């Protein structure tokens, strides 16, 4: 999940009678699956929740370019290089749509980016893990994009129109990303013993952080309940996580790789796979900034932004000059 912990600003759920008239009409629209559009009235908490969620998602796309970008210059064939380049380019595009969607809610791209650089905004914990071998590029596509897809498909039906529409396009591209990742894993697993070891090592390192992508168990969470009532969120974190595990087990079997969880076992009664306990202390630690690459990721983004300032300023200054020149001629 690219937005793992979104505060809705709500302290307790209210029943329909407690809602003021405007808010009741708003909730009625949502209940009838009518999309909320930028100019429609919306509760402030709904707006802010969406800004938080969409910007976390946008930041995740942009920071997420870095671990894979790490292998762009070292891709092992020209074909792989082109595919990875197209994928990372898609992520920049996703970031753009999402910042634009957040802008429809009155947030500015610049302010959101500055919040990220100041360490005030979150992004998915998964991108704070390092990519140590080429197999990591495969594992990210297969698992990370696979998990993102499971989370994001329901967002295509999100109540907020601009976000839902952005997600339709993003999901199509994510599906291609997942396939390219799995195809890298297939090639590695069909390759030499060393390549297969590389693939297993990547799976060992990415499996648990991928499960954490869905966020903490939220059955009890007030934020989940509120986000579900607003139809910003359609399923609980645990439901989505289970779906991901069920989907991934046969995929790993096909690759003849071993998922690093001795407790993983098919439950004949539920038809799902039971899995071992997730180390939530690691999740919270990474989310709060203490993961293997948190500091580097933010430092890299900040450096790019700072070093690019003169370029952005020049483009603005040139644009202003052109406007003045046009005005003088007209």
């Amino acid at each position: 999940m690219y937005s793992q912990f979104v505060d809705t600003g709500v302290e307790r759920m209210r029943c329909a009678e407690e809602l003021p008239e405007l808010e009741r009409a708003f909730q009625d629209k949502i209940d009838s699956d009518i999309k909320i559009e930028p100019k429609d009235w919306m509760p402030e908490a709904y707006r802010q929740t969406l800004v938080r969620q969409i910007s976390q998602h946008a930041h995740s796309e942009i920071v997420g370019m870095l671990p894979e970008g790490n292998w762009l210059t070292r891709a092992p064939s020209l074909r792989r290089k082109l595919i990875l380049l197209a994928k990372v380019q898609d992520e920049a595009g996703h970031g753009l749509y999402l910042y634009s969607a957040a802008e429809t809610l009155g947030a500015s791209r610049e302010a959101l980016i500055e919040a990220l650089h100041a360490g005030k905004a979150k992004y998915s914990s998964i991108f704070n893990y390092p990519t140590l071998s080429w197999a990591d590029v495969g594992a990210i596509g297969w698992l990370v994009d696979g998990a993102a897809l499971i989370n994001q498909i329901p967002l295509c039906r999100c109540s907020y129109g601009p976000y839902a529409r952005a997600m339709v396009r993003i999901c199509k591209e994510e599906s291609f990303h997942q396939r390219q990742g799995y195809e890298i894993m297939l090639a590695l697993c069909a390759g030499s013993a060393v390549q297969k070891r590389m693939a297993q090592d990547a799976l060992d390192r990415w499996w648990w952080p991928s499960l954490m992508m869905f966020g903490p168990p939220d059955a009890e969470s007030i934020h989940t309940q509120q986000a579900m009532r607003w139809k910003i969120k359609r399923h609980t974190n645990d439901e989505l996580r289970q779906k991901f595990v069920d989907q991934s087990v046969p995929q790993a079997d096909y690759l003849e790789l071993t998922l690093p969880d001795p407790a993983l076992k098919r439950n004949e009664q539920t038809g799902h796979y039971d899995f071992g306990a997730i180390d939530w202390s690691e999740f919270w630690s990474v989310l709060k900034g203490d993961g293997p690459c948190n500091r580097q990721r933010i430092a890299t983004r900040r450096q790019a932004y700072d070093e690019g300032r003169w370029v952005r300023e020049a483009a603005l200054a040139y644009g202003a000059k052109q406007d003045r020149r046009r005005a003088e001629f007209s």
Partner: protein
Amino acid sequence: MNRQQALFEYLLRLGDNALILGQRLTEWIGHAPALEEEMGSANIALDLIGQARGWLAYAGTVEGAGRDEDDLAFQRDVMNFRNVLLVEQPNGHYGDTIARQYLFDAFHYPLLTALSACTDQSIAGIAAKASKEAAYHRRRSAEWVIRLGDGTAESHAKLQQSFDTLWPYTGELFALDEVDHTLRRTGVAADLTAVRREWHEHVTRTLAGATLVPPQEGWMQSGGKQGRHSEQLGYVLAEMQFLPRAYRDARW
């Protein structure tokens, strides 16, 4: 040098220019000054590396030694690369990258346009497709030259410095040698004198629009097309070729 050897060399020049410049551009991904530039740089890199595949695959066929595009990209050392020195120069700041790109694009577009009328049908086919991409590349980089040259005092000074530094690498673009002479006789190689004329007109016009001073003509670097490179290329290749060289028999 026979015709086949000359053709192989010529295709390596075309392919290596595109490959090395594309590789340099991928270094920007994740580090560009704005999201739009991440996408723009990736676009140009995608085009160039795509073109490189076409040229190198055909070079492998012409050579007839069983080497494919990846063998040629990943298994040759510095002295066997045939790109011009300009494209291997480091990215520097964004103005350096834009100046390098523009000086190349202004050459690449007329070159590819000329080659799309080549007597060799394979070359003509690749060039016809690539020239459409190069037309866009030249438009984009020329616009950035004007924007940065005529932007702020800081961007103007930076870009002037970029052009002054890179100018000595432009002479090689048009230098003729035995490869060109051998292929000109059969209408394969482009007429670099005509390419130079168009390059010069376009660059003069763009620099004027950017309020930049054309750098002084003087001594020019050379050697890339014959395999004598700057110190930069070894590092580019070390990074790019690491995996196929570390795992010799692996398929990816």
